[in-house]
């Protein structure tokens, strides 16, 4: 059962990822990305990281995608088609990616992973304790740093997006 779900999810992720990077319509591309992200959260669910799956859904599918959609709406017409790279370039990059993929996969498959059989479910509590622990191996400091980073980026985003009124009336026509 999980096996089938996983394959479906994997298929969804890959197909929509490809669709996302090759679609000519901006908004569709974002929506395809949304499906990819949801698929990824599905994988998290599958391996019993429910908390992570939830974060994935809220932060990515909820936050980032909305942000993206808004920005796309701001700067694009819905019907506008994206300009694609030259065919030769696409082929070149595609080839390079494929080769890279091959290299990575050979590396991966040639490596013996020592897999530990387990089916434990990681609870939110565990994660909370781990994150906020003061003891050795605790993540309180990074946690605080990240929260300050988030704050800073929030302020930064607002400042930048608001902008000083750089656009003079005269230059608007340009």
């Amino acid at each position, binding site marked *: 059962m999980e096996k089938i779900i996983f394959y479906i999810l*994997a298929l969804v992720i890959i197909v929509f990822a490809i669709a996302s990077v090759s679609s000519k319509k901006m908004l569709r591309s974002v929506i395809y990305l949304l499906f990819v992200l949801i698929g990824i959260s599905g994988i998290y669910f599958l391996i019993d990281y429910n908390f992570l799956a939830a974060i994935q859904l809220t932060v990515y599918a909820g936050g980032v995608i909305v942000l993206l959609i808004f920005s796309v709406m701001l700067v694009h017409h819905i019907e506008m088609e*994206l300009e694609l790279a030259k065919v030769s370039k*696409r082929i070149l*990059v595609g080839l390079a990616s494929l080769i*890279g993929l091959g290299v990575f996969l050979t590396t991966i498959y040639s490596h013996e992973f020592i897999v530990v059989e387990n089916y434990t479910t990681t609870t939110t509590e565990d994660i909370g304790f781990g994150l906020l622990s003061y003891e050795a191996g605790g993540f309180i400091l990074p946690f605080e740093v990240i929260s300050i980073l988030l704050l800073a*980026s929030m302020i930064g985003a607002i400042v930048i997006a608001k902008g000083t009124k*750089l656009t003079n009336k005269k230059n608007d026509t340009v």
Partner: protein
Amino acid sequence: MIAGISIYEILTVTTILFFIGVYGFITRKNLISILMSVELILNASVINFVVINKYLYPDMLQGVFFSIFIIAVAAAETALAISIIINLYRQIASVEVKDTEIMKY
């Protein structure tokens, strides 16, 4: 751990996802699309963190913590990037890469 699914299969999927992201990052000509490709790459790596944690070191949670941090940083990054894009759009009315080469040389 997913029953019947080995770590290889998951890693294969993430690697594919990663390279799709790379492909998108290089070929797309629109800033927002590039940003999206970056998200793909990030997600691929996040999955790797999680999966490796789960399959190889199930009694530790470092992979999970890092995934959370990555997601947080990615969100922050996205927010900042989009604000920059919007600001740029106000300045030059375009978010195409080719229009943003003023500082090139």
